[in-house]
């Protein structure tokens, strides 16, 4: 029996401790939604192929952590010495563990609380928690109900920061089951550029659950490059929701890599809210063991002449499950939309499952939209060819899967990150 009542106590406690008016109001509204919606079930269309209730069989304590700078140093990604490193521990932004290199003439990094009480009051008020129309479920609302030590980033008008942003989500599960609910809002101002890479690390063997919500607002002529690397432990689950709202003619490029984890759900929502927006979404999931990865993408074309292209590829081996749900909406005003989507899957085991569901919902006539998806196998001919040249089967498979991954990996623009991901993939595939 799932007991969610302790969330009520935690929620009330938080409302007392953290009395910021604006955020408290969002929390209240979200908590009401959570109570009303409850947890998604298999009958919830958007959760048809992903069961999440098992993550709530245990209670998650709200207690401190013992993460040190030395712990963080051990998990850093290549290129870190040139990056702004933002560290969240158990979902709370930790200034002391973070390291901001960029000057505040390029980029401002504030706690959400400071942002809402200072010069960014209106901006945060305008954009925080404004994408809830796309996800109405209880999981998403649960994050909203516990917004506290979140972060606000402003990339200043006309600036291309010299240092990219690395975000580490560290979950300390060495003592207890951990629930982390990080929350961030990034405002990418006119003619500026955001380059962001996020990764997730659980320490310890107790279960962890990271329920993240990230909102990015993109202004006129701005560029967003966003990379997400999920290679956590089998006891680490996460629901990672990203809302990217393009409010000016702008360019967005995202790549999501999922290798290891327990239940991993990504919601990548692109709201194309200005004429001529352009978005490119890529995803790669290479699943083994019992990992369950579910990539939901949503492209809402709200204005004319937008372009989007999606390529999500993956494999499911062992007892893993891969889910892809790609939804393209074209609103009545969004004439001359071009929106394309491709999802390719390889099933390597009879105990693995692939569920894929592309969706087109089109309310404008002058559009070109298409989606295609395939489920198949590794090319037997190619495999045989390699073996005939003396390469053992396992190695040949790794080679072919690396090649299969290459057309997604090619879209990771920073070389340090791409090399890092390639290395992770090689290690991941080579484990027998």
């Amino acid at each position: 029996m799932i007991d969610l009542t302790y969330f009520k106590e935690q929620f009330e406690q938080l409302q007392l401790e953290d009395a910021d008016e604006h955020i408290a109001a969002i929390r209240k509204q979200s908590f009401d939604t959570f109570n009303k919606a409850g947890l998604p079930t298999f009958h919830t269309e958007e959760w048809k192929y992903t069961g999440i209730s098992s993550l709530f069989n245990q209670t998650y304590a709200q207690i401190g952590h013992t993460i040190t700078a030395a712990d963080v140093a051990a998990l850093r990604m290549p290129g870190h010495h040139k990056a702004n490193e933002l560290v969240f521990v158990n979902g709370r932004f930790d200034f002391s563990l973070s390291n901001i290199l960029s000057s505040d003439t390029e980029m401002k990094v504030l706690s959400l609380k400071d942002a809402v009480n200072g010069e960014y009051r209106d901006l945060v008020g305008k954009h925080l928690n404004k994408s809830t129309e796309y996800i109405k479920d209880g999981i998403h609302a649960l994050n909203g109900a516990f917004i506290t030590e979140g972060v606000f980033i402003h990339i200043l008008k006309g600036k291309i920061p010299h240092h990219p942003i690395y975000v580490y989500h560290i979950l300390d599960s060495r003592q207890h089951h951990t629930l982390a609910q990080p929350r961030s809002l990034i405002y990418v101002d006119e003619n500026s550029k955001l380059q962001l890479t996020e990764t997730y690390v659980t320490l310890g063997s107790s279960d962890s659950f990271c329920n993240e919500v990230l909102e990015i607002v993109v202004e006129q002529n701005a560029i967003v490059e966003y990379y997400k690397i999920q290679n956590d432990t089998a006891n680490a689950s996460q629901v990672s929701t990203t809302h990217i709202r393009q409010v000016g003619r702008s360019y967005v490029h995202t790549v999501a890599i999922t290798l290891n984890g327990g239940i991993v759900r990504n919601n990548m929502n692109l709201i194309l809210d200005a004429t001529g927006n352009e978005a490119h979404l890529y995803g790669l999931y290479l699943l083994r063991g019992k990992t369950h990865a579910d990539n939901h993408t949503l492209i809402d074309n709200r204005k004319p002449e937008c372009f989007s292209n999606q390529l999500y590829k993956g494999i499911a081996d062992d007892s893993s499950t891969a889910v892809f749900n790609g939804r393209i909406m074209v609103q009545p005003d969004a004439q001359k939309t071009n929106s394309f989507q491709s999802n390719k899957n390889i099933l390597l085991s009879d105990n693995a499952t692939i569920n894929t569901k592309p969706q087109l919902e089109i309310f404008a006539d002058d559009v070109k939209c298409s989606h295609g998806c395939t489920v198949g196998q590794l090319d037997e001919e190619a495999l045989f060819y390699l073996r005939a040249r003396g390469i053992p089967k396992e190695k040949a498979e790794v080679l072919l899967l690396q090649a299969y991954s290459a057309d997604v990996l090619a879209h990771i623009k920073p070389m340090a990150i791409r090399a890092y991901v390639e290395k992770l993939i090689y290690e991941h595939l080579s484990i027998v």
Partner: protein
Amino acid sequence: MKDKQDSLEQAVLNDYKYGFVTDIDTDVIPKGLNEDVIRLISHKKNEPEWMLEWRLKAYAYWLTLEEPTWANIKYPVIDYQDIIYYAAPKPKKQLNSLDEVDPELLSTFEKLGISLVEQKRLTGVAVDVVMDSVSIATSFKEQLSEIGVIFCSISEAIQQHPELVKKYMGSVVPMTDNYFAALNSAVFTDGSFCFIPKGVRCPMELSTYFRINTENAGQFERTLIVAEDESYVSYLEGCTAPMRDENQLHAAVVELLAMEKAEIKYSTVQNWYPGDKEGKGGIYNFVTKRGICKGDYSKISWTQVETGSAITWKYPSVILKGDHTIGEFYSVAFTNNHQQADTGTKMIHLGKNTRSRIVAKGISAGFSQNSYRGLVRASKHATNARNYSQCDSLLLGDKCGAHTFPYIEVKNKTAIVEHEATTSKIGEDQLFYCRQRGIDPEEAVALIVNGFAKEVMNQLPMEFAIEAQKLLAISMEGSVG
């Protein structure tokens, strides 16, 4: 630009030609649904006790269900107590042959293009016609029975072939399958029954023509087709209804069984009254159609041309149970004005080396909403399952919608599933090219739409293909070559 829009609209305007009412003396029971009504229907049809029990069981189950809401359709709440569940043209006397059918009825079907007078028929098509709740007549029965083919109304089958009905009815679509299937199981009135014995290739097309006539009546027909080993049958279904301001409910169930090496080809031209241009009236068409390829090497092929109904909710499906079985689904769904269609298929691959193919073409015009919804499932033991799906949508005008919801579930590593979908409008270049050759914009649209739907139209038997083309409101000057 304005001109072009108008001509597009003009081109897709489709006046409903089948909207007349036949003035005939009808036996109608009062509106409403309860156990007594079901007993009355069963009594009127002089059914055996087991049939009544089956109906009552279905009714009891239906009461526990809630109407589904997942489809992409919107309609006011249906009042199931405001529907007449049984209406039958009163027979003047016991019929011994077709010559004794009420001339008014015969002329009704003549008007619809269905000749029941056998000697007048040019093509060898055996026809069963169902008006409201009962089967009026079935042609070519004797010739068919000589080779062992049973083709009669389901009511007659219940009387004459109870063992077959008992064995197969509900075996593909159980009464518990869904809300509308349960309702149909409780109140179904008539429909067709076909049985093709082992090794027989049915020499003519079998066809049932459904007609709703009575106001406020619902139509709940039930069709059952059994193809024994190594047999073949091609079955056609057509439907029309008068124009009325009120919505009328049609909730049918169709079950197909194909045994070893048998093949069933099932074609539908659905032209229930779609409602007027403002969206008033029209048929709510909630249909459960499913076939099972039970024996190895069997094949079931669904072809549908959907032009009618205010609302269509329909997913003709194939369960590929036997090894080496084949399932096909070819569909054209055309929606105009305020019509809503949510239609598609399910291909459930269970056996080894099973293959399925889906070709769905949606055309939306006016204010209509047209959705493809499909499921392809390769289960764990479906070694070498293959599916190819192609869903294309064409939009005519900027106030309609076209939507695609395919579900693909694969649990076998040797399965290959491919799905492709596109949405586009008629290219201005295509339109201009036609006009430069002297072809009217309206006719150009018709040509292009027909070309778009051709792959599906080609699957229809010849006579039906012609009717279907007319139904698409596309007048293409004769065909050469």
